[in-house]
């Protein structure tokens, strides 16, 4: 009576979809289980899509994927309470197809992606929460238990793409509860505006988009960033900070977002918009050192569940897709050689990951999270100093520039010793190296 598949993929986000797609394309009998009403209804992202990872499995995705705007301009703003110092990078190079980065709306995008998974031949079943993993007498994972009557389903391998909370792996004892220093909490709102208004306000043409990364006082001293992305007819605005910081603060996440929205430099961008959704989501930002065990007898972990996020570059979905693909390719290779899905055989997944940009990038920034954790001046003192410097420099008030420079220098050293400044610079250089 019980159903048996070659592989079960738990979750229909970018990692799960890529895994299920890759497996099904290779002719495997795949079941994908998703707890949302439709794929996407439980998923939250900023959201920016990096073409490369998707292109590798669906080269012509641009033909029908619901893409919002391709990004031609990146702004970085460092804010204090009433001003910001910013850099803008805009290039016609980004405006030549095939485009490299797009804003997307996940509910629509995930639904599209899932349709591709179905077309590839996987059986996709939604509204079904996997509550546990099934084990055999040797403690190998042999399937999943879902929250429905008659819900024991078997498979040679189970790919856990169940997101940042990674409840299944935790329940199975594969890894421990997340540490608040390893996760960020982001809250986001969707503000709808007419297309033309967005294009005028952000100085872009049809289908062209802008990303604004926000640093400084918007996080009120916590380690984190804000963001504002342009979609076709909406803006995604959000702010995220480390949970460990939230844990010691007396400001609620929604108040933080509300404050940010009311910053004099941001408010006009949102004016007259219609807020249509408020979301919250955790981001696994523990980096390389926090990556748990990612494969064992009959199971593998992909995407957010495995901490595969590059917090420094705010990349996640591309890592998710890549891990999903590499996990699936590992399974396909083993199946072709009729090898069992043992821990030893599935270790090939880790090797593939190590050879990919995923692990290389994460390794490069492995010190980053800790540096920021131990040095909150990056989020408090510096933004204020930078803004004050700009103000001093730009204000025309009869004071000569040399004196101004001296004032700026002394305000830096006053707030933070010369040693401190040099140390910070060194730490950042080390981490980025």
């Amino acid at each position: 009576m019980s159903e048996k598949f070659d592989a079960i993929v738990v979750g229909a986000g970018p990692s799960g979809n890529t895994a299920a797609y890759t497996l099904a394309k290779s002719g495997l009998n795949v079941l994908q289980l998703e707890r949302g009403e439709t794929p996407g209804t439980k998923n939250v992202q900023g959201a920016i899509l990096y073409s490369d990872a998707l292109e590798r499995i669906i080269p012509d995705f641009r033909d029908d994927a619901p893409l919002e705007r391709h990004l031609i301009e990146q702004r970085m703003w460092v804010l204090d309470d009433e001003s910001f110092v910013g850099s803008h990078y805009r290039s016609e190079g980004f405006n030549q197809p095939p485009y490299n980065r797009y804003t997307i709306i996940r509910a629509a995008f995930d639904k599209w992606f899932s349709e591709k998974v179905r077309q590839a031949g996987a059986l996709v079943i939604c509204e079904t929460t996997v509550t546990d993993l099934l084990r055999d007498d040797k403690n190998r994972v042999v399937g999943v238990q879902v929250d429905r009557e008659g819900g024991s389903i078997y498979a040679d391998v189970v790919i856990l793409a169940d997101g940042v909370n990674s409840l299944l792996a935790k329940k199975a004892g594969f890894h421990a509860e997340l540490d608040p220093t390893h996760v960020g909490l982001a809250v986001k709102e969707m503000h709808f505006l007419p297309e033309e208004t967005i294009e005028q306000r952000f100085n872009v043409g049809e289908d062209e988009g802008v990303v604004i990364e926000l640093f400084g006082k918007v996080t009120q001293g916590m380690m984190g960033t804000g963001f504002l992305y342009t979609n076709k007819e909406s803006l995604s605005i959000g702010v995220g900070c480390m949970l460990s910081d939230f844990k010691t603060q007396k400001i609620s996440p929604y108040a933080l977002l509300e404050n940010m929205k009311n910053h004099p430099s941001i408010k006009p961008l949102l004016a007259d918009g219609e807020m249509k959704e408020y979301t919250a989501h955790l981001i696994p930002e523990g980096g390389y050192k926090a990556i748990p065990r990612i494969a064992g007898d009959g199971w593998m972990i992909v995407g957010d569940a495995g901490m595969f996020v590059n917090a420094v570059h705010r990349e996640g979905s591309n890592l998710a897709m890549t891990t999903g693909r590499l996990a699936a390719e590992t399974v396909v290779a083993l199946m072709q050689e009729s090898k069992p899905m043992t821990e030893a055989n599935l270790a090939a997944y880790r090797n593939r990951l190590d050879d990919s940009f995923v692990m290389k990038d994460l390794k490069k920034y492995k010190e980053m999270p800790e540096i920021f954790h131990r040095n909150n001046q990056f989020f408090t003192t510096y933004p204020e100093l930078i803004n004050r410097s700009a103000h001093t420099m730009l204000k025309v008030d009869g004071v000569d520039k040399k004196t101004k420079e001296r004032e700026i220098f002394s305000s830096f050293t006053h707030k933070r010793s010369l040693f401190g400044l040099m140390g910070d610079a060194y730490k950042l250089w080390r981490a980025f190296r």
Partner: protein
Amino acid sequence: MNVKVEEKLFQNRYRVDTDHPHVNIRNPDVCEYECKTQQCTVCCPAGCYTREGSGKVVLIADGCLECGTCRIICTDYRNVDWEYPRGGYGILFKFG
């Protein structure tokens, strides 16, 4: 600033599983008498946890965004039982 999270949640779509709350406080006494910070009442992005005058923490998870914050920040007492809602229930993001 007086921010009303209700106004924000009003925009969202939910299918509440009335008889099956997916988040529960394990032992309410721990929240009331032992936990000094009651940080869940601050950090929950949906304001699901409220502190009553008496010091009791009341949880109504209908507006839950299923982020997991409350569970993870409860490091001292591990007093939150947290599961995903039954299939199809809970928050249903329109945009995500």
